[in-house]
């Protein structure tokens, strides 16, 4: 569904993405992991045309995103929901108004229908009580969850999550991860998740890609990922104390809970 071909991005003199190619099929949960500052957020932004690649192409089905502009780009972007790393809420709108914005601007729903959907989305991320507060009045984790509610409130085909659970407490993080999984299953939405939480990524993703030093290190299923002999992958797994055995145990536990 989404295809990146030899994506290269150079800012000034620094190469942030170097020949990154991958594709994500419909209905998949695709996780991107990697050390800080390797261009994960930049990759996501390329998928919706917020950055133009220095070279290489990005496709959504048969349409080229990386060269689209104007109405064509708008059409493409309408299919995406996007959770930004910092939440990116508008400061002068309340949480509920922020979440309502895509519905108000992109759909022709009635006011009470919008309100209902906004409340549902806020309920799903556990922010119902904060609906009338302003972004500056809530914590960073709450801002992120409000951003998540805004990303998923509208029916779209693909949702991009930039670190949905970083900065959240473990219990809320699990709720959010389950929410991502549930949305993906119920609505058949393709999800691309940038995350540092490798353990959870291994459990809920269909595929995992690791980027390091602006290159793709591995792009594999969770099982293959854990079994990989690649030095960087092993280092990354070690850092979070994940071994093949512990992964298998986690997986059993996880599947019991589903």
């Amino acid at each position: 569904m989404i295809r990146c071909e030899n994506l290269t991005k150079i800012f000034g003199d620094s190469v942030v993405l170097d020949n990154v190619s991958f594709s994500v099929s419909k209905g998949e949960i695709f996780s991107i992991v990697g050390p800080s500052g390797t261009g994960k957020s930049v990759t996501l932004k390329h998928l919706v045309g917020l950055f133009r690649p220095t070279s290489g192409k990005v496709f959504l089905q048969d349409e080229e995103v990386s060269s689209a502009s104007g109405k064509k780009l708008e059409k493409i972007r309408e299919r995406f929901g996007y959770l930004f790393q910092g939440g990116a809420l508008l400061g002068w709108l309340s949480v509920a108004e922020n979440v309502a914005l895509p519905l108000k601007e992109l759909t022709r729903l009635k006011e009470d229908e919008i309100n209902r959907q906004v409340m549902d989305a806020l309920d799903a991320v556990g922010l119902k009580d904060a609906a009338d507060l302003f972004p500056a009045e809530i914590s960073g984790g709450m801002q992120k969850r409000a951003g998540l509610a805004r990303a998923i409130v509208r029916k779209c085909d693909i949702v991009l999550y930039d670190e949905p659970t970083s900065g959240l407490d473990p219990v809320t993080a699990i709720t959010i991860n389950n929410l991502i999984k549930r949305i993906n299953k119920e609505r058949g939405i393709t999800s691309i998740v940038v995350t540092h939480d490798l353990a959870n990524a291994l459990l809920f993703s269909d595929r995992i890609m690791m980027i390091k030093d602006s290159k793709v290190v591995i792009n594999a299923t969770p099982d293959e990922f854990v079994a990989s002999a690649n030095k960087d992958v092993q280092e990354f797994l070690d850092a979070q104390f994940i071994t093949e055995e512990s992964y298998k145990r986690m997986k059993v536990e996880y599947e019991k809970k589903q």
Partner: protein
Amino acid sequence: MVVTRESVFNKNGKSFFKVILLQMCEMFAAIGMSVIMMCEALSAFPLLFFKKDSRKNVFSQMYIVGIRTLPVITVVGLFTGMILGLQVGLALTKFNQESFLGAAVMLSLIREMAPFVTGICLSACVGSAIAAELGTMVVNDEVAALEIMSISPVRYLVAPRLGALAVMSPFLAFYACVLGVVGGGLIGWTQLAVPFRQYMVSAMSIALPKDLFVGLFKSLIFGIVIGVVSSREGFSTKLGATGVGKATQRSVIISFLLILVLGYMVTRAFYLEF
């Protein structure tokens, strides 16, 4: 693509002349971008009045531009008039021509000084705030979030601000002019013994409708220039918080220079007959 998010050119390690050349290119690109942005914002004006939300937005911007700057404009307008009154009055008393004080103060205010000082105040009070606000929004991905929702940042953010500036700037210039004339009169009356009545008669008899219209036209242009320049600077913010500071600074400097230059050009166009 008004929001670029990255430097257009890489100037690292280039020779001096190349850097100058690239900078010139960047300048022309900025001018072109500003013109495109202005046209897009102007074409979005009718839309602003259809939607309830955006109408509310325009009024709140007008409040920020028109009402919140009143204290500053009041002081600036009054003192500009007082300074003019004192300086011109002192010069005129040398030739025993104090009766023309009103005319001199009025003409310089209505034609030049009122739009000029209003423009400077607006660029310092409002333009800088616009650049900083939009710049912060770019850095925090809020503008990107709008773009993802297919909400044009120009329509949603620039148009209300530009509209508010364009509408309020002439009103504020008029207000500054009135206060300035009164200030000059007070100085003439208290310090130079020019009767207030005589001052006002002289002031009102010299001012033509043309002077008023050209003055207001000038301040309309200044309002638009401030809005466009500070929005563009805000949108081209790069590199985090320092970038926001730079954008704010540049927006004030560029608006200031353009106000001076365009002020001269408008005057030249309307007052120098061939």
